[in-house]
Structures are given as structure tokens and as C-alpha cells.
């Protein structure tokens, strides 16, 4: 598909959108006092941020670590109940929204259970630890009429890290064809996309006593049993493939979701992926140098882990390049930009979406697609070989071995 077809496509797909300012929940308007209620599952560092900062009325917190639980309860104040089993939280009829801030190996299971329990969901990134879990989650959310948001926001808000600008003007430039097509996007450590390699795992961990406050078996849940070591859990779990995928897991979806949006790939995925990295350890996440992905129409994404090309463009097409802070080799870009139509506005208020039962701008569908980039990158790093992917079937082509990482086994009794 060339750029012109793409524009035509988007024309026929619905020219305008407006995001009404009105809150349409109640018979007239929702009075401000009528807040939505929520619970936070997993109240480690990230979960306690949800406890402190999220809109709505908090009713419950849940963690398999009694220490975390009491910390969160202290923060939360009165009227909030602590739980150790998230399924008990889902039983409560007075809770509208479930916030999921557990390690990623739990995201899929809890989200699906929450959807089936009739809850709306605000889920931490990365959406799911495997592609298959994400696929299933999309189906369950649709069937159960859940309103879902993934907790990243750069496609509609804030300066976008190493781009040195919000995403909106970039989307506008791309959508109006100023750069031509196809495009190549660099997500470069050196310009400000930190890959957080300190989320590395350790090998040869000597087993340790399990702290009394932690229900380690529940913490592991669907993950294969491994003997306890403090480094496997809180604050450092991202260093182990069983639970996440290092800095890719932590920051990947933040960095890649806006790229999917800019390239208009919300309903598809790359077809080729290759990583340049030292051999990966089976358990401990390590480092990588570069990860390259290509879509069927020729668009490319390059993740640079070490940071090449400090002054290189972050996005380039046959007709022009964009550098950090929206510098460009296109003459009078600013003026040209002013005359162009805006991209479609996006819903930025999740509670609005919940009340109106409308899809949020960052939902399970585009969220699954951007998490897929993260999961593809993880698989490429683990396997070392070049991979070919079928975005429709969401399976690798002619590589059954690689497909074993698309859907990974779960430890009973946890399953999806």
C-alpha cells in the first residue's frame, strides 16, 4: 500500500471524530461526587503509585506480600480493605475498575478474570507477557463488554522521550504525507530512550528462605517453580524471562505504542524481526545491542540499545527526515504543519470512557498490538535468529520452535 492509498483509506474510514466534553453517564450529567470506584491488585512500587495517584474512589488493595499490603493500606487511609487473593476482590459488587499492577506474568490471568467478573480494567504495561495471552485477552474483553485501558499515554499526552516533542505533530506530519512512505523509525538510547539495562537478571542464585510475609507460591502463580531468591521478586523481577523481559518489558510499550500509532499499525504487526544481541540466558534477562523490525509495507523500526547516531533522525521517509525536537530537513515545516488538518482527537479520560461505555484511546486492541512488538523483540533476543511473523494468525512462519515462545506453558492450577 502506498502513502496515497493510505490517506484515501483513512478518508473513507471516517473523516472526523470528536471527543465530547460532556460526561454522559447519568440521566443528565454525572455529578462530580458520584465517583467511580476502584481496587489495585499488586501494590509494590507501581501499585502504590496507582493507590496514590489514580482518579476515583479506592476501595481495596490486594497483594500476596503482607508487607506491601500494609504499606499500601497505610497510604490509602480509611475505608480501604486489604486482600491477599485477587479473586476475593473480584467478588465485590461495589468495585467498578480493577487496576492491575502485578508483575506481567499475572496480567493476562487477572485481566481475564476481572473482565468475566464484569469489571472494567486499567492495566499496567506491558499488556501481557506472551502474544497468545494478549490475543485471548482481546477476545475475552470483547465478549464481556469490558472497557479497558493500558497504562501508557504517550500517543495522546506528554513529551515523547527521545523525540523531544509530543506525538501529535509527528502524527500530523506523517498522516499528511510530508515524509513520504514507507517510514523508518529509530528508538534510540542515545537520544533519550533509556533501555534500563539495570533490569538484568542474575545467574546461580543460591536458594534463600522465603520471607514470612510473602506467599511465594501465589507470587509465582503460572510461572514455573524456581526456588526463592529475593532478586527474583520485588523491584528486580523484570530481570527474569519467567515474569517479564528487562527494560524491554518495562519501557518497551511506552516507547513502541506511539510508534504503532504514528505508523497507523494499530491493527497489525511487523512481519520480520531480528535482534543483535549476545546469547540470552534461559532464565536471566541480559542486554542487547539492536532490534530491527519491518512491516509488510516496508516501514521499519530500529531499537538501538547502546545508542548509535546521536544526531540521526528519529523518523525518516523518502521525502524528509525528522530530528529530535521536530527539527527537519523539510523547509518551513512549521508553516506547512499549520495549514494541515489535525489528526483525530483521542479520548484521554478513562473514566469518561467507562461512563459512556466507549472504547478508550489506548485499549486492549491497540494495546495488544503494541505489546506484541515488545514480545516479538523479547523472542528475537532470546532466539538470536531472524524471524518471520504472520500478523493475522499471530504466529511465526516456518519456525515452530519460535512459536513455542508465542504461547508458553502455565503451572497448574493457573491457566487461561
Amino acid at each position, binding site marked *: 500500500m502506498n502513502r496515497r492509498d493510505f490517506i484515501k483509506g483513512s478518508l473513507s474510514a471516517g473523516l472526523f471524530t470528536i471527543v465530547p466534553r460532556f460526561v454522559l453517564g447519568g*440521566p443528565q450529567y454525572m455529578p462530580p461526587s458520584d465517583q467511580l470506584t476502584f481496587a489495585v491488585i499488586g501494590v509494590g512500587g507501581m501499585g502504590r503509585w496507582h493507590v496514590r495517584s489514580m482518579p476515583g474512589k479506592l476501595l481495596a488493595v490486594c497483594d500476596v506480600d503482607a508487607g506491601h499490603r500494609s504499606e499500601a493500606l497505610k497510604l490509602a487511609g480509611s475505608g480501604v480493605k486489604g486482600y491477599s487473593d485477587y479473586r476475593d476482590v473480584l467478588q465485590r459488587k461495589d468495585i467498578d475498575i480493577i487496576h492491575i499492577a502485578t508483575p506481567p506474568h499475572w496480567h493476562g490471568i487477572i485481566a481475564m478474570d476481572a473482565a468475566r467478573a464484569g469489571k472494567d480494567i486499567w492495566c499496567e504495561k506491558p499488556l501481557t507477557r506472551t502474544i497468545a495471552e494478549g490475543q485471548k485477552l482481546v477476545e475475552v474483553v470483547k465478549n464481556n463488554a469490558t472497557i479497558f485501558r493500558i497504562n501508557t499515554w504517550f500517543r495522546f499526552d506528554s513529551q515523547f522521550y527521545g523525540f523531544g516533542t509530543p506525538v501529535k505533530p509527528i502524527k500530523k506530519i506523517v498522516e499528511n504525507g510530508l515524509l513520504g512512505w514507507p517510514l523508518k523509525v529509530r528508538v534510540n538510547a542515545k537520544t533519550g530512550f533509556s533501555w534500563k539495562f539495570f533490569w538484568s537478571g542474575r545467574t546461580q542464585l543460591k536458594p534463600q528462605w522465603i520471607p514470612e510475609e510473602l506467599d511465594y507460591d501465589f507470587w509465582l502463580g503460572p510461572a514455573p517453580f524456581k526456588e526463592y531468591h529475593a532478586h527474583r521478586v520485588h523491584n528486580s523481577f523484570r530481570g527474569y524471562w519467567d515474569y517479564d523481559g528487562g527494560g524491554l518489558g518495562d519501557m518497551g510499550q511506552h516507547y513502541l505504542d506511539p510508534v504503532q500509532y504514528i505508523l497507523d499499525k494499530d491493527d497489525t504487526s511487523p512481519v520480520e524481526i531480528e535482534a543483535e544481541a*549476545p546469547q540470552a540466558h534461559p532464565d536471566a534477562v541480559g542486554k542487547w545491542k539492536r532490534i530491527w523490525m519491518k512491516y509488510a509495507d516496508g516501514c521499519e523500526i530500529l531499537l538501538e540499545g547502546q545508542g548509535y547516531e546521536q544526531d540521526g533522525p528519529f523518523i525518516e521517509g523518502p521525502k524528509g527526515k525528522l530530528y529530535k525536537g521536530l527539527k527537519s530537513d523539510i523547509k518551513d515545516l512549521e508553516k506547512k504543519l499549520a495549514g494541515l488538518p489535525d489528526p483525530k482527537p483521542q479520548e484521554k479520560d478513562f473514566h469518561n470512557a467507562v461512563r459512556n461505555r466507549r472504547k478508550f484511546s489506548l485499549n486492549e486492541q491497540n494495546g495488544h498490538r503494541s505489546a506484541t512488538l515488545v514480545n516479538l523483540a523479547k523472542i528475537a533476543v532470546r*532466539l538470536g535468529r531472524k524471524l518471520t511473523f504472520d500478523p493475522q494468525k499471530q504466529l511465526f512462519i516456518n519456525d515452530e520452535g519460535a512459536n513455542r515462545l508465542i504461547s508458553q506453558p*502455565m503451572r497448574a492450577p493457573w491457566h487461561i
Partner: protein
Amino acid sequence: MTKNFSLLTLVTLFVFWSCAASTEKNLAHSFDIDDLLTQLPAENVIKHDLLMQAFLTLGEDKLVSASRHLDAQASDLSVQAEYAFHGLALYVNGVQYKKQRTKYLSVIDQAVKTDLSFKSRVFLLEQLQYIVDPQAVTIAAAYLSHAELWETSVMVLQSQETQRAVTALTDALTNANDSQKVAIVQALEKLNATDAAAQIYKILPADDELLQISALTALAAFAYQPAEPQILDFAKKQEGKPGLSLLYAQSLLQDGEKGKSESIFREIFYDDAAMFNSAQRCAALRGLSLCIRDNVFADLLKAFNDDDKVIRITALDIARSFAVEQNIRTWLNTAASKSVEQQIEIIDFLANIKNTSAIPWLKEKLNEENPAIQVSSLAALLKIQSNTFDQDLQAVLQSDMADTLSHETESILMQWQDSLALRKVVNAYDSYSLSGKKVILKIIAQRRLLADAALLLNALNSQNTELQIVALDGLALLELQDDFAKIIKAYLKTEDNEFQQQYEKAVMASYNAKTHTDYLLELFDNASQKDKIKLLKIFRQAGGQKLFEKSQQFLSNAPDASAGHAKDILVKWKDENALPFLIHIAQNDKDKNSRIQALRSSAIILKDSSLPVDEIIAYCEILLQANPAVSEKRVIISIIAQHKNNSAMELLVKELDDPDIGFNSYLALLSWAETKSADENLRFESLITKLLQGKIPDSLRLQIEQYRMEKFSASPPEGFTALFNGLDLSGWKGLVADPVKRAQMTPQELQSAQQKADSIMRACWSVSNGMLIFNGQGFPNICTQKDYQDFELYVDWKIEEDGDSGIYLRGSPQIQIWEPAFNSVGSGGLFNNKKNSSVPLHTADKPVGEWNTFHIIMKGQRVTVFLNSTLVVNNVILENYWERDKAIYSRGPIELQAHRHPLYFKNIYIKELAAEPELYSGALFNGKDLSGWTVINNQPDSWQVADGMLLCQGQGGGWLSTEKEYDNFELQLEFRMPEGGNSGVFIRSPHQGDPAYSGMEIQLLDDYSVKYKNLKDWQYTGSLYDLQAPAKRVTRKSGEWQKITITCQGPDIRVVLNDEPIIDANLADFGHAAKKHPGIKNRKGFIGLQNHGARVEFRNIILTELP
């Protein structure tokens, strides 16, 4: 470097690579498996594949034996073995590697059967999940009923989507216990193994609730109809799982059983609605729609009456897929009687189906009073793209709705891609309401609709001030140079100060110096006195020589009243043309306010001036002489500080004398220095030193010294002292040669060498801003003047790209500092070690250019290093680099290594540790008496000494304990058993309780006595009693002397009996037994010998304490 890629292996690998398979056999003998292992992890995929190929040339037996490395205690290649076995699993999957895959699988098969630890066997078995081969299924399936490995086995089979896996799982179901059944059933469900349904059905009813649910869930997912009564009953049960019936109905539908599933969906949605949550009812309604398709409309219409918005929205969402056209009219009629909220829901629905027949209805809705309905209708008309949409929008803009909907209409017009239609909407401007007009004016500016810019210009003359302001804001965006005259004329028409700022912005946006200067001059000449003043305000913004000259001319000739105004304006002039004028005013004007303003303006102009730097500095100097107020002086100092050349620096140094701003000048100099390189920092530092010695006011000297003390001086943590004071090099010296050479020098030689070393060091090391800085020239190490023995040291360090350094302890190299990217491992390793580990455990470096913190502990010969709070060296012996055959020196200086790249250090703090008490090593039993021992729970004479032996008399029980407690040690002793004898060695035991449990016991026994023939493994000699059996039976007969060595180190317990290792245990593995054996958590306690009713003899009891 740390890991040397063996040259031989490298050569062999490349030969191997280039000769490919034909020489495979010949090369097989060339690889040493340990040598290959040391190459892992491979740095890149090419080397990875080469190594994996090389591994696969080796014999199965060699590969099986390599799996021994996986057991951590047995090998320092265990991580490498993990890389190898995992790497191979991923590698052999390719179709072309059938032969290699068979070999690898056979290796796994054999290795899992060996006596490796549980953890290693799980690891090997887990690798099968990555392998696509029927043989992998067979191997994993063999462990489905294994007491320990079944869980791993089930997980492996979960990934194998083959009939073979299904059959194996189904077969295993019969004899499995309940938790195994749960896992197997769930695995079968995941594999969609409908064939297994009949077997799973047999499980029902299960006593175990989890098993019951798992089985029912799988059967529901398989739509297994014989189980229907059980599924539906259980779903309806109190405390049951209503979701089961939904799942069952969905599965039935997938199997094409529409009739059955329809009735279940109906039950869920209607009859049993109270049992289900709205999510489940939504799913049921969706299921129902898939059963009966277009006929679902009546149900949807009913669902739309539900109180639950979730249900209503789902109903409308489903309605989008079935018989849309036929039913639109019904929806519209329904809407009439509904609440506002429901009306909006229908409007949204109409928008989503994009059906044009709803347009007239929606247009009517635009006129509803409720703004929410208006917004939704407008949004719907937009989405449907009615071909009269531009007219609809115009209608909105014409009416009062434009006010409520201004945000939305603006958003629409900002997105509009059809520029003709957009123009059409804009062109109807005159017909719009006030709010409508405002929207259009904004859009013209933001979309740069230059052809319609006239509307903005016209709006300037409108009577309505709101429109004027919007127009001015718009003109400020548009830069309409051709319309400059129009805008400025409008400006001159306004009353004084009305929208002055907006006008100035709008005028300046359209101003072009080249084309408009002359016009402005002409306009000025012909203007009234009042307009002239107004124009001066524009002149000031526009700047330039001609306009300034004209202004100055006016000022000098103007009548007093106007001159006052004019001067007020001109002292705010904004470009360099006014500098002489402004400086003149600043120096000479009678009016204080004018002087201040002129000075400020001058400062502003100078701040961004493109004049040559020396000229700027000269102006600054003049301004400083014009006696400015303190605040202006500070501004001027900051301007000078921007220009970092010598004349600026000199001026700042001169201003140090000024009591008002001396300190500011100092800070300016300081900030200037902070941005500079190490070398320039040095220059700054010497300047400061000179300053502090030279003639500056005492008050300033005090101020500077105090500031430096506060900002830079070290503040060590409690118990530590600073090795570096943050201010100068006191406490440090240059390094002379090395310890060996220094020892050979005479005092005179050493003194002169020291002087020379100091002067070289001082040329290259300096202190600035609290940092100890090396300028990157050569290799002159710096070292402490004092020597240290045992200590704890903190040091912060920073390197630049390619940087390299190290911390020498006791004058010996070194704790490595370097850039991890180029060295495969990070900093912190004991780089020069040969026998002991030289690499850090982890790479914990911050990116180059950021500060890192070492926390170093040196005790005896051993060193522990934390880098950025990560343990990177764990109690490793530091070898003596200078004299390889000797242990590390007991004392010496701390040195910082210089290595041709700039380095930065700060916060260097030390705490000297009392040298550790020497660890005990020697005889516990002196051969003469029981000194050092004490009898517990028995008569003192139950233990006796005879012929240099310690005898247990065998009466009364109890035990003989050491007087001291020990934590880590190696205990060696000899013992002789009588026939049928029994005794034991207690370790880490308290004096209370049964020491075999409150501490731990290593059993001593006459293993061969008939009376012990029925004992368990873990009761024989050498066993860690009741916890771990000896690996083999090497006990000698009663009456023979036997030797036992017991080593306790942290959680590791090792026993060697008669020179054969028989126990190698990690206490952490016994978590399951912790209740019965609280003693396994002890890390310290008495050592004892058991009196178990037998006359046992002991001799040569030697204890070595371990760190």
C-alpha cells in the same frame, strides 16, 4: 581482559567452519568440552551457531557428562552449562538438524536419569518445551507420574500440540493424584484434546473441588454433551461457577449446536439473569445473536430497556451486525419515549452504522435543548458524512448552539481534509452568530487559510471587542506582510493602550524590515503628534538603524510633553542600534528611572547580542562604571559570565573587589569552570588559589572559603573519615615505582623519587568543585600518604568514553574500572587475579559519564566489592601481583590508577577495621585433659582421656561440648567404633534441647552391625542425621580407625569420610524440614560429641575456622 577466547579453540572453530561437515568426524576429537563451555555465552549469533555445531560434534557420553556442570557446587562452569543446554535446545529445531536433534534429545534423556540435583533435572527437562520433535514428547511423558518431576513434565507437554502428547496425558490421568489430575486436565484443555473428554468425564464427581471445577471447565470447553447435566447443575449451585454454563453454550455454538446453545444463552440472559453479572449477560446476548442472527432484533430491543447501561450498549453494538437497514425506523421510534441517556445511546448507534436514512432525524435532534444531545447529534452527522454536512455545520454556526458546541466545531474544522468544503463553511461567515464567527476566525488562523484572511482584517474594524481580540491573535499567527498597512492603520485608529500588546504582536507579525521601513518613516512624517508616539512603540519593536535614528531625531526636537513620552518608549529599545544612546542615558540622565530602564535595556540587548565578545565585555565594563544598582550589577555579571573568554575572566576577577558583587563574580567564575574540561578546571583552580592568596577584600575571602567548605568539603558517613577533603590534595602523594622496588631504595633515593613523583602527580591531578580530577595525561597514579590494613572504603568515580582506571588496595592492583561496552564485563572485578575470580559477578556500571559508587571491604586477604549497591565481588582473595608466590601484603596505600583518560573521583571515605582476630586453627583436644570442653547433661566423668585419646564411657547419655561456639569451620577427627556402637558429632548446637534437632548431627555408627540393618539411608555414618543420606557407603568395620572431615560454611555442609566426599548439602534445600529441625537455621553453635551408650574413641580433633 577477563575471558580469553582460547586461541586454539578459535582456530579450530574457524577451520571447522570453513571445512564444514565433511571433516566433522576428524575434528570431533579437537574440541575439549570444558574449553567450549568457557566460550559461552556467545557474543553474537555467528559465534553461537559455530559453538553449537562444535558441541554437536562431541559424543553423547561427553555431552551427558557435561550436564554434571549444572550442579552449582560441583563446577564453576555451571552457568556456561545452562547456556549450552539451552542454546542447543533452540539451535537443533531447524529442519536440517534432524540428526543433531536426535542426539541432543538422547543426551537429555540420559542426563535426566542421572543423579543430578532436582533443580538441574528440572532445567534439562524444561528444555524439551522448545523442541519440536515427537521424541521430546516421549522423553517428557516418562515423568508424568514421577514424584518430583511431574509438574515440569505436564508443562512441557502443554507446549506440544501433538496427538502423542494428548495420548500420554490421557493415559497418565488414570493413576494420577488429584493435583496431578488438575494439571493434566488443564493441559488437555489447552491442547483442545476433545478426544480426552470421555476420560476426563470419568473423574466426575471429584471430592476435590478444584479438580471438579477443572474437569467441568474442560468438558464445557469441549462441549461434551454427556456432561451437560453436571455442568449446568454446578453452574447453578450456590458457591458454584455460573460462567461454566456460558462457556458450555459458547462451545456448543462453535460446534454448530445452535439450538442447544440458544436455549442456554436465553436462560442466562432472561430466566437466570439474577445469577449472572452484566459481563456474562452481554456474552450471552452476543452468543444468542450468533445463534439466531437477524432474528435477534426483538431480543435486542428488549435488552435496550435494561437498566444496566452495559447491557444497552452491548445490545446496540450487536445491532450493528444484524438486519440494520430494516430496523432503523424502529430504533428511531423507540428513542422518542426514552431518557436523554438512552437517546444519546441511539444517536451514537446511528453514527456507528453510518446510515444516511437517519440524517433528517438527527438534524432535528440538533435543535434539542439538551446540549449533550446536540453534541452527539452533531458527532453523528459528522460520522455519517451526510453530503449536506457542511450545511448542517453552517446551521450550527449560525445559531446559538455555536456557543455550546464551539469546542466540537473547532475540533471538526481542524480535522477537515476537504479544503473546498472547508472554504464553503468559512465563506458563510457573515451569516454566523458571534460564537460561530469566533470559531471561524480561529480556524482561518490555525489552518492558515490565507485566502480568507480578509475576514480577520475586517474583524479589526468590527464593533465587537471579542472578535477584535480573536482577529488580533489570529493575525499574530499569520504574518500577512501584504496587509501590513491595513493592520497598522487599524492600530492607529484605536484608542490609546487599547489591546496595545495584541496590536504590537499583530503588527510585528506582518512587518518586514526590507519592505516596510520606508513606509513606516513616511507614515511617521505625516502623522499627528499623538500617532507619532503610537508609532514609536512600533518602531521600538521593529528596531533597526533607520527607525532608531528617526526616533532619536524626534526626541531631540520634540516639545517637552512628547519628548517625555518618547524617551520612556525609546529607553526600552530592543536592538544594538540603541546601545550608545542607552548607555549615554544610563550614565548621564537626570531621571533615575530613565537611567535604570536604559541600563536594563542595555543589559537585555547585550545578553543576546551578536556583537563581538570583546565589544560586549567593554560595554559591560562601562555599564558597571555607571554605578548601577546591585540587582543590575548582578545582571551584568551574568552577561559577562556568558562569554567565557579571557577578557571576560579578567573583568570578573577585577569585580571580585566589589563588595556588592565580588561573590557573584566568584560564583560566575565557578560556574564557568564547571562547564570546562579537566584541564581548564585545573586552570581555574590555580586562579582561585592565587586569588585566595592575593589582594581581595577579607570579607570576600571569608565568604569564598566558607562557600567552598560548605559546598565541596567532604562529609563522611558516621564512623568514616574522608581520604579526600574536597578542597585540595592534602593526604595524597605521587606514586613511586612499586612496593618491591621501593623496598630496595635507600631513604635518600626514596625521598628524591617521591619529590619527582609528587611534581608529576600535581601536574596531572587537581581538585575542582569537590572533585579529584585526572587530566588524562600519562599514567601517574595517585596514592594515599597513609598505609591501610583492613578497611571499608567508599569511593565515587566517573569515567569518560574509553576510560580506564582502578583502585589499588594495599598498593596492589586492582579493582577494575572501565567501560563495560568494550570489555564484555563491567567494573569492580579483581582484574589481576589469576587463581581466584577476576571478573565481577554482575555488570552494575552506570552509563559512561555518570557517577558510580564503590563500597569496598578488605579484610585479611579477602575483598568484597559493591558497585552501585550491587554485590560484584563476594569475599574473594586478592592475589599479590608484584610477588605472585606471596599472599597480598598486610598493609599499603590506597591508589587511584591513572590510565591516559580523564578521571573523576569524589566522596572517598574510609573506615579502618580492627584487624580480624586470627581464626583458630589447631587441635581442639590436647591429648592430656578435657580443657576447652564441657560435659552437658551427664556426670563429668562420663568422658575420659587415656593414651592421648578421648573416650566416651558409654553411660548416661548427654554430650561433650566445646566451650566456644563456632560458625564456619572445617573439623577433622578420627574415631573408632566398638561393635554395634553409636555416636555422633553435633554441629552448631545450642546447649538446650536435643542437639540433633536444636542443632545438627553428623551420624557416627557401626553401619555393619546386624542391629542396624533396617535403618534408613539417612541414619548411617556420615549422614546429616534425618536430613541427608551419604552419597555412598564408605564406612569401615568396627574396631578400625576412621577419619571424618566436616565442613560448615554458611548454608553449605560437606562431609568427607575416609577421604570420600559423601555429603554436599545446602541447608536451604531442607525448608520442608525446618519445623522438625529448627537447628538447620543456626549459623553458629557449639561443636559436640555424642554419648549414645557406646564406648567410642576419638583422636586428632583438629579445627580450622573459616571466614
